[in-house]
């Protein structure tokens, strides 16, 4: 008998009719907005961009969401997903009450329980783990604002192990590479000054399809001003279609192109000599390093004509320093990702764009006092040494390592909290490990708004209310101008759902950790913080967003000699830290693996209608884009006798087959690759709209390339064959 059978929450469990009147017509047909309209401020939670906006109700019914005009993330315009946020609230499949795994006659199932029962159970298990194994043996995997409250709870308990898949499955390599080069990360929102750039280079970053709102807006501004866009992508992305130059590179050879660009900039004397001399170290080593990598060499790797490589390098140089090579965001591709991101960082230094107008601005946050809490107890162990010692330069927890550290009788992690991150569709190759960990863990808690796949592994499922029904931490994002933004509830929480702060606070009472939750309501914390910043909760409930003046210049001053937080205090073209740790101090190109006979490279990406698998069950977005399709070049489609609309299954070399997925025959993908949008192919029974619709790229990933530096999971070395469905 398995300790934990994987359970699917059926559609029947404690689910009544949802607020399904949202999209229905109206009998009396009054014009929209002529009733009583109430608008409350919110911060969008449909993705990580966190735009500020307003939730509008009319005559007490949900009406619409709009962007906040004073918000720099949205400039008054929410994106497709943000505009559809009411769909997350109205989703009839939402979790409504706590569920606990029970066993009867050898069969396991989830049973609705009271909060009292669920929280007592969790607290008892935590105490037991603490006594048997140590209080440091709990871990948190999270994504999103509410995770902070569980972090506080676990640290107060003595457990510091934590990871967010946004590191090892997304931004990790960029974060590490830019920290090594400039001493700091690009951050979020990305500090790219596209609004003022005259030349923008996108390498595999499909801005527009990834609808990072403010970023898309500034790219559009740049295009409207006539900035030249250079897009490197094996697919004719939306951005490629707007570009002056599209470089249809052979997938996986980006680093060869980057080295060749450096070669041209250096050998033709096109780099910013003054900037390089004043702010960088290691130029001579770099110059020497890139000598073999001329455009003729790169042509053989990338398939890009040498003249095109030279022209585009000169185009960047012509516009520098208002020329930026975008670092991208999802950067976990081939396992040498930190090196590729280092190359991007170095290229920007050669263009002199970091800290310059039209390059990368200096973001600023609002000084915001932290709510006073007691110091956390000293953890009993160094968890990073315990679970990810082989990646000493990784500044964050590595999500797959946390799961791996929960496998086995002598595992380090004995209790796991998963907050709002659907691990099986997020971390490649994790499903079997999660299955194993679920057998060994003594506590598995999942917190979510929907019965996502990950909840099927849990002992206890805690139902969170959506962002439209709760207060959360103030948004204090690094931006062009400092600002604060408030998320407040527009609706009472559905059913028995609760915000994360309430759950963590209730647990703290059972664990004797109340000192870390010294408030009645999280509003008290927000008001206290806002008062310190010269505002108040009452003011922010009216304003939604408050901007504050900058205290530092947006760009480097002409004579400024900024101190970079690197070992040398300079921009490190040659990374002394990488050398010290035995890695390549200058980026070295590794040719990508190629598919075998009958196989194609599977590349995946975003669509503007969805944030991965988190929104595919949203009724409004489901209506806009219910399924993903498999993009296939007409020639390959012809070879297989496939027409648009026909269904195929994908099979990886290990025999894993996807759901049937419809083919989209299009010239926008070359003959070597297949493309599909990530986030489809859900299997959770409780997701009644999206279950079984479309194919899941993550489940097909068999060849995961771990980046030795960042510890992240490269996901673009995966090959699939086509089978008729």
């Amino acid at each position, binding site marked *: 008998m398995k300790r934990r059978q994987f359970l699917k929450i059926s559609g029947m469990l404690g689910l009544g009719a949802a607020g399904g009147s949202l999209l229905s*017509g109206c009998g009396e047909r009054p014009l929209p907005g002529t009733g009583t309209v109430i608008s409350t401020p919110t911060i969008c939670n449909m993705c990580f961009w966190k735009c500020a906006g307003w939730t509008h109700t009319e005559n007490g019914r949900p009406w619409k*969401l*709009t962007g906040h005009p004073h918000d720099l993330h949205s400039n008054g315009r929410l994106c*497709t997903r943000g505009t559809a946020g*009411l769909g997350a609230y109205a989703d009839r499949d939402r979790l409504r009450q706590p569920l606990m795994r029970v066993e009867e006659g050898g069969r396991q199932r989830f049973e609705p329980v009271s909060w009292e029962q669920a929280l007592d159970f969790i607290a008892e298990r935590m105490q037991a783990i603490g006594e048997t194994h140590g209080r440091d043996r709990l871990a948190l995997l999270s994504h999103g604002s509410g995770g902070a409250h569980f972090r506080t709870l676990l640290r107060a308990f003595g457990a510091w192990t934590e990871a967010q898949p946004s590191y090892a499955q997304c931004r990790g390599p960029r974060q590490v590479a830019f920290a090594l080069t400039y001493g700091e990360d690009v951050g979020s929102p990305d500090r790219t000054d596209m609004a003022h750039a005259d030349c923008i280079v996108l390498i595999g970053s499909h801005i*527009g399809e990834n609808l990072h709102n403010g970023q898309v807006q500034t790219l559009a501004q740049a295009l409207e001003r006539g900035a030249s866009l250079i897009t490197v992508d094996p697919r004719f992305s939306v951005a490629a279609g*707007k570009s002056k130059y599209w470089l249809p590179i052979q997938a996986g050879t980006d680093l060869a192109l980057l080295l060749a660009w450096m070669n041209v900039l250096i050998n033709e004397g096109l780099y910013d000599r003054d900037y390089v001399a004043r702010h960088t170290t290691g130029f001579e080593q770099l110059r020497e390093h890139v000598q073999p990598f001329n455009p003729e060499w790169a042509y053989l790797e990338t398939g890009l004509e040498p003249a095109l490589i030279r022209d585009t390098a000169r185009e960047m140089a012509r516009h520098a320093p208002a020329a930026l090579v975008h670092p991208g965001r999802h950067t976990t591709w081939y396992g040498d990702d930190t090196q590729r991101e280092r190359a991007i960082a170095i290229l920007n230094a050669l263009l002199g764009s970091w800290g310059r107008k039209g390059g990368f601005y200096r973001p600023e946050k609002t000084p915001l006092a932290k709510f006073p809490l007691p110091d956390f107890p000293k953890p009993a162990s160094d968890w990073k040494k315990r679970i990810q010692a082989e990646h000493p330069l990784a500044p964050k927890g590595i999500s797959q390592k946390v799961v791996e550290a929960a496998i086995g009788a002598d595992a380090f992690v004995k209790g796991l909290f998963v907050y709002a991150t659907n691990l099986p569709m997020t971390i490649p190759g994790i499903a079997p490990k999660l299955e194993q960990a679920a057998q060994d863990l003594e506590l598995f808690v999942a917190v979510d708004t929907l019965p996502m796949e990950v909840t099927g592994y849990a002992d206890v499922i805690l139902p969170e209310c959506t962002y439209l029904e709760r207060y959360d931490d103030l948004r204090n994002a690094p931006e062009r101008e400092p600002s604060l933004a408030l998320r407040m509830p527009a609706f009472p929480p559905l059913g028995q759902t609760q915000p994360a702060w309430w759950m963590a606070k209730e647990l703290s009472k059972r664990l004797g950790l109340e000192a870390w939750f010294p408030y009645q309501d999280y509003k008290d914390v927000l008001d206290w913080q806002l008062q310190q910043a010269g505002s108040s909760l009452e003011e922010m409930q009216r304003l939604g967003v408050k901007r504050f003046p900058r205290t530092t210049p947006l760009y480097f001053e002409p004579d400024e000699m900024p101190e970079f937080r690197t070992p040398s205090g300079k921009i490190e073209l040659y990374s002394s830290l990488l050398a010290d740790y035995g890695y390549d101090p200058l980026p070295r190109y590794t040719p990508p693996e190629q598919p075998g006979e009958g196989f194609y490279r599977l590349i995946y990406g975003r669509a*503007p209608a969805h944030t991965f698998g988190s929104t595919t069950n949203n009724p409004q977005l489901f209506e806009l884009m219910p399924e993903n399709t498999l993009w296939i070049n007409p020639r390959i489609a012809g070879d297989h006798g496939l027409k648009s609309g026909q269904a195929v299954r994908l099979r990886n070399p290990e025999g894993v087959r996807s759901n049937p997925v419809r083919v989209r025959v299009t010239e926008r993908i070359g003959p070597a690759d297949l493309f599909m949008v990530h986030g489809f192919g859900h299997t959770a029974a409780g997701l009644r709209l999206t279950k079984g619709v479309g194919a899941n790229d993550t489940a097909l990933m068999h060849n995961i390339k771990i980046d030795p530096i960042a510890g992240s999971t490269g996901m673009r070395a995966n090959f699939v064959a086509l089978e008729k469905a």
Partner: protein
Amino acid sequence: MTRYAMVIDTRLCIGCGDCVVACKNENRVPAGLNRDWVVERTSGAWPRLETEFRSERCNHCDHATCVQACPTGASHHWGDTNVVLVNPDQCTGCKACIAACPYDARYITPEGYIDKCTFCHHRVEQGLDPACVATCPTRCMHFGRLDDPRSRVAQLLRERNGETLKPETGNLPNVYYLK
């Protein structure tokens, strides 16, 4: 006559569908029906390609064949403007207008009357842009009075080539696409 027009810059449009969702919420459009939609057209062959995205809707034609086809007067121009509206109380749901519309912009509601884009005239009355225009993240959509030479739409059409869909119908449509 007041001529309202929409001018959409296809060089900026990314086909994100935000206009579609904003319209549906603003106007409480029933599930499964749409007043606006996005069209993608790719031409050429790998790797010499062009892709165009267009947000489409009722063209609020000066010579609206739907208005002419309506037997009850339910389909009408809004006051002295080109904005085409349907009065649900007069509409019998006969669908003559659906057949007469060159743009397939009309649908029948579950209640049995015909509905379509109104250029959000309830917002226009308040000096606001239609919901689709107001939410567009790339600001590729513009709305205004063509009869006012100082308006952004008039200015854009003077500066750049604006094309309408199916001009050969003689309907004199008022949604323009900048290439």
